[in-house]
Every structure is written in C-alpha cells, then in structure tokens.
C-alpha cells in the first residue's frame, strides 16, 4: 500500500505500511518556502496515521531542512506519540539532528491565550477614560506647581535662567510662525467682513460691519485663532520633542546628571510660548483688521478713511486689552498640556502618536473652556 501526497519540486510525505506499523517517509525540501504546503501535509498525515499504533517517521529522504520543516516534523512526532502510540524519527543526518534537537526544546503547552472580545471591554474602557480625566486634571495642576517652583528658582537665582534655550524656542514658535499666522488671520478677516457686509446690506447697515469686525477680532477671534494654530503647530512639536526624549531615556539621563527637566526643558519652552502668543495675537489681529478693511473697501464700498473713523468710534482700548490679557493665559494652558502629554509618553512610537494627538485635542479644548471663563469674568466686571 503506497499513498503519496506530493508536490511539484516541493516536499512530500509518503505513507508506507511496514508490518504492524506505518512508516511516514519525508522527502524533498522541508523549508520555509513550502511551509503552507507542509502544514497541510502534516495535518493530513496526522489524521490518517492517528488510528495506527507504532508509527515511525523516516526523514532520510529530506534534501533541505530548516526550522519550519524541523518544527513540523517534531510536531508530527509529538502528535503521533500521544495516546500510547510510539513515534520515532529515523534517518536523521547528523547535520540536521542538532536542528531537530533545538526545536525539541520547544514546549507547546506554553502558548499564552489571547484575550477575547467581550461586552465588558467597552464599558471598562469608558470607566477608565473617566478616571483618566481626573488624572489629567491632577497632572496639569501638579505641572503648574512644578513650573511655578521652577520660576521661583529663577527669581531667586537669575543666573540659572536658560536664555539661549528660551531664545531658540522663541524663534521656533514665534518668528517662524509669523507668516502662516498673518496669512490665516488676514483671510479670516476678509471672510468675516465679506459675510458681514453681505448680511448687513439687507438692513442698509453696511457700515456696522466695522463694529462687528473690530470687536470680534480684537476680543475673540484673534486670540482664539492664534491659540488654536499655536496648539497645532507648537504644542504638538513640544509633545513630540519631549516624548521622544522620554522614549530614549534622555530625560532620565538629565535627571541623573543633577538637572531638573522642568528647569532645563519645560520652563524655557513655556516662557517662549507665553511671550510668543501675545505677539502673534497682536500681529494676527492687525492682519485680520487689514483684511477686513480691504474687503470693506473693495466689496462694501467703505473707503479706508471712513473705515478708520468708524473703527475709532466702535472700539475702545478695553476690547484690545481683553484680547491681550487672554493671550498669555492661553499660551500657558497650551504649553502645560503639551509638556504633561510629552512626559507621559511610554516606550512605543504608537504612544508618542497618541499623546501628540491628545496634546492638540486637549489644549484646544482647554483654550475654548478658558475663553468661556474669561467671557463670564469680563461680563461680570463690565468690560
């Protein structure tokens, strides 16, 4: 009785009846290239040979063997060797014997089970997210404390202030951000003015667009737009920088050399941001007013002279002050969120990505919350 499960040029496993028992004769290349076919061969052989006692595996015909083949032979031997039957491997050349010995040390029962899906998962996640929210608040407050302590140290010993680093970050977050911030606020100013004129014209109130533009840009739009852009541009960069330093143990190295990462890395970044955002807000507001004025002139027929006169009546210094008071606070919020997220990065690239995303999302969220708080506050004191 000779049955053969053969593959062209590839491996084969021949079944030969030998007296009482059965011999499985392996031949061909038992290598990774043929692994899918080998897996099928071995599975079939296991089924058929299951009923027979006294099975032996003859591997003398094998031309090439690697770990895939060696493991499959070993697996065959083990599975046949169960329930009383005896399986031996014969015809093993000395070269391959050591390889088979290597895979023989592998246990099969050691496979750790994979955790399955269940209904509990999502609910548990929801709970953990809620807890994580409180942890976030705590982390933000403790970072704020650490930064204040760092600033205190600078006040006590001004020489410890890292001027070079601060100037470097100021260049990154302020100077290099100017073109894009000015461009975008300019365009937004144009759009707001155009929409205002379009709708106010129905009531014959074209010229009130100047009031709207002035108040909106100086009080809200300038600082909000700039904060959101800075969160996306510089907050994310801070998180990624600190996060990758954390990943490569650079922050631990700093600490062991007796430096406080807060002083070396975080305070200069925050100071740079707190200086940058008001400057950018001012530039952004001017660009938006300029854009709005341009549209009012070209599209609404309000000439520049009339625009400026109207603007002088419509806005007071309070509107400008409100915007400028908010700016450094927004900067601090963005900076602190970015640094907390950066230091929370764990070892993997995925974690870096997650925290960078979280940094941007959370800082924009907090910026808007703070803006609401400010609105209530300023309404309360009547400006």
């Amino acid at each position, binding site marked *: 009785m000779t049955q053969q499960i053969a593959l062209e040029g590839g491996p084969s496993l021949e079944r030969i009846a030998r007296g009482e028992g059965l011999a499985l004769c392996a031949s061909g290349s038992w290598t990774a290239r043929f692994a899918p076919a080998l897996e099928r061969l071995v599975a079939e052989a296991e089924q058929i040979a299951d009923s027979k006692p006294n099975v032996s595996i003859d591997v003398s015909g094998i031309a090439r063997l690697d770990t895939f083949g060696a493991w499959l032979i070993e697996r065959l031997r083990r599975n046949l060797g169960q329930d009383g039957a005896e399986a031996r491997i014969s015809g093993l050349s000395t070269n391959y014997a050591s390889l088979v010995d290597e895979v023989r040390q592998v246990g099969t029962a050691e496979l750790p089970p994979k955790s399955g899906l269940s209904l509990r998962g999502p609910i548990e996640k929801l709970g953990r997210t809620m807890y994580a929210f409180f942890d976030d608040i705590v982390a933000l407050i403790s970072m704020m404390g650490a930064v204040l302590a760092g600033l205190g140290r600078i006040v006590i010993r001004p020489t410890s202030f890292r001027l070079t680093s601060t100037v470097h970050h100021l260049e990154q977050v302020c100077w290099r951000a100017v073109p894009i911030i000015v461009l975008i606020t300019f365009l937004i100013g144009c759009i707001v003015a155009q929409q205002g004129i379009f709708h106010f014209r129905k009531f014959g109130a074209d010229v009130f667009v100047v009031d709207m533009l002035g108040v909106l840009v100086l009080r809200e739009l300038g600082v909000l737009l700039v904060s959101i852009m800075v969160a996306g541009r510089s907050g994310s960069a801070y998180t990624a920088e600190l996060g990758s330093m954390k990943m490569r143990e650079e922050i631990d190295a700093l600490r062991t050399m007796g430096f406080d990462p807060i002083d070396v890395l975080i305070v200069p970044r925050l100071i740079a941001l707190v200086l940058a955002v008001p400057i950018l807000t001012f530039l952004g507001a001017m660009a938006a007013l300029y854009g709005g004025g341009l549209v009012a002139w070209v599209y609404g027929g309000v000439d520049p002279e009339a625009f400026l006169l109207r603007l002088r009546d419509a806005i007071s210094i309070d509107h400008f002050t409100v915007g400028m008071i908010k700016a450094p606070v927004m900067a601090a919020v963005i900076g602190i969120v970015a640094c907390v997220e950066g230091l929370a990065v764990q070892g*993997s690239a995925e974690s870096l990505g997650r925290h960078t995303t979280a940094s941007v999302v959370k800082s924009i969220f907090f910026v808007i919350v703070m803006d609401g708080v400010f609105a209530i506050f300023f309404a309360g004191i009547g400006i």
Partner: protein
Amino acid sequence: MTEAADPIIRVRDVTVQFGATKVLNGLDLDVRRGEILGFVGPSGAGKSVLTRTIIGLVPKLSGSIEVFGIDLDKAGKAERRGVERRWGILFQQGALFSSLTVRQNIQFPVREYLKLSQRLLDEITIAKLVMVGLKPDVIDRYPSELSGGMIKRVALARALALDPELVFLDEPTSGLDPIGAGDFDELVRTLQRTLGLTVFMVTHDLDSLHTACDRIAVLGDGKVIAAGTIADMQASQHPWLRSYFHGKRARAVVGSP
C-alpha cells in the same frame, strides 16, 4: 586577498562619503557562501556603514555590490524583494517595532511572505524564541518592557524568522552576558551547519571571533586591511591587529601570553 569561488556578497571599490569625510574608500570584500565572517575594526571605522551600504540603506558614491550574484543597483523591484526575502538583518540597536509585541515583531516578516495558520505562526515564533534563548512568556511584551539583551535576542529571532540564507549581525553579542554570548555563538554555528547559513557578523567580541568565525576581515582607513583566519590575524604584523589580538583582553581569551 584570495578570490572566493562562490562569493555570496561581492563588494568592489566601494566609496561612501558623508559630507567631506570618506568613511569607506575603495573597499573590496568577498563573503563566501556558508561561512561566518567576523568583521572587526576600531569604533567609528565604518563597520555599520558598510553593513548598511550592502543592504542598500546608505547610498554609495562609487563601486558595485552584488548579493546572491545580483547587483542591487540594477535590480528591479521584484528582484530586490526576492533578495530581501533571503536575508535577515540584526541592527546594532535592535530596531524592533516599538508599537508591536514580541510575537507581532517576529511574525511580521513571516506574514508578509507566507500564508500560514495562526497556530503554526505561534509555534514557529516560540521555536525561534527558544532558539535565541528566551522564555516563551515574553511573547506578548512590548519592546520597551524588555532588557537590552532581550531586545538583541528578539531582534535576532526576527532576523531569523524566515530562515534566511544570509544574515547580517551588527554586534549581536554586545549587551549579552558571557554565557548568553557563548550560547549565541553556538547557535550561529548550529544554524550555519544545518541551514548552510552565511553570516556577516560585525563584532568586538574576541570570544566570538575565536569560537564562531571561519574568517575575519579587518576594516581600517576605509579599506579592508586584512582578511583571513584567526591564525593569520594573530600572525599579522600590522600594529592595530597586533594590539587587538595580542592585547591584555586577547591574552585573557586565548589563555597564553
């Protein structure tokens, strides 16, 4: 240098430059099929750069490199993939994928090239882990949760995942304890014997050079300044080789003054 009958890697007159400094300057090297070549040289000599140049990660200024008889500069995409399927690389820093577990790291190349059942994949993964001397319970850990030596071993398991014909090992035993390093040399030997593996091994480990390597090539001044067996190296009069193979550490390994 003797011409090999059947070189698996053939490097001719290769020059690599970063900015104004020539790291490799007209380098020739043959790696023969089935041998373990130990590659030594001072730190910063350009061993890693040569490895990366052969693999094609660093562009070369001039010269030609053939692997498996195929010039990778002229090879098409499919041909290049065919070559990549046949080699495995252990980077000096491990280069494990940080967002994948050990299991996923090792299975990643296998899944790409072979359609196997999850069961066989897991079993092969465990077999590879045991072969490189790790316990199977690390299988679901992330690289950041492993020790330095464990990272090396997992990276080696990944390099060997597809049972390649040629492996590049950049300082495989640095960061391993001496016993682990000895086991490692043993493993490389076994694989060479059984799989006909060719190994290009950058190393500073004198023990490895003695016990594992068939031949040693020495890099200096951007060239291979010597190549041969360990006995040739010990007989060499080159000053760097003399201090390398007859220094205090070397005497400790050989056990003779």
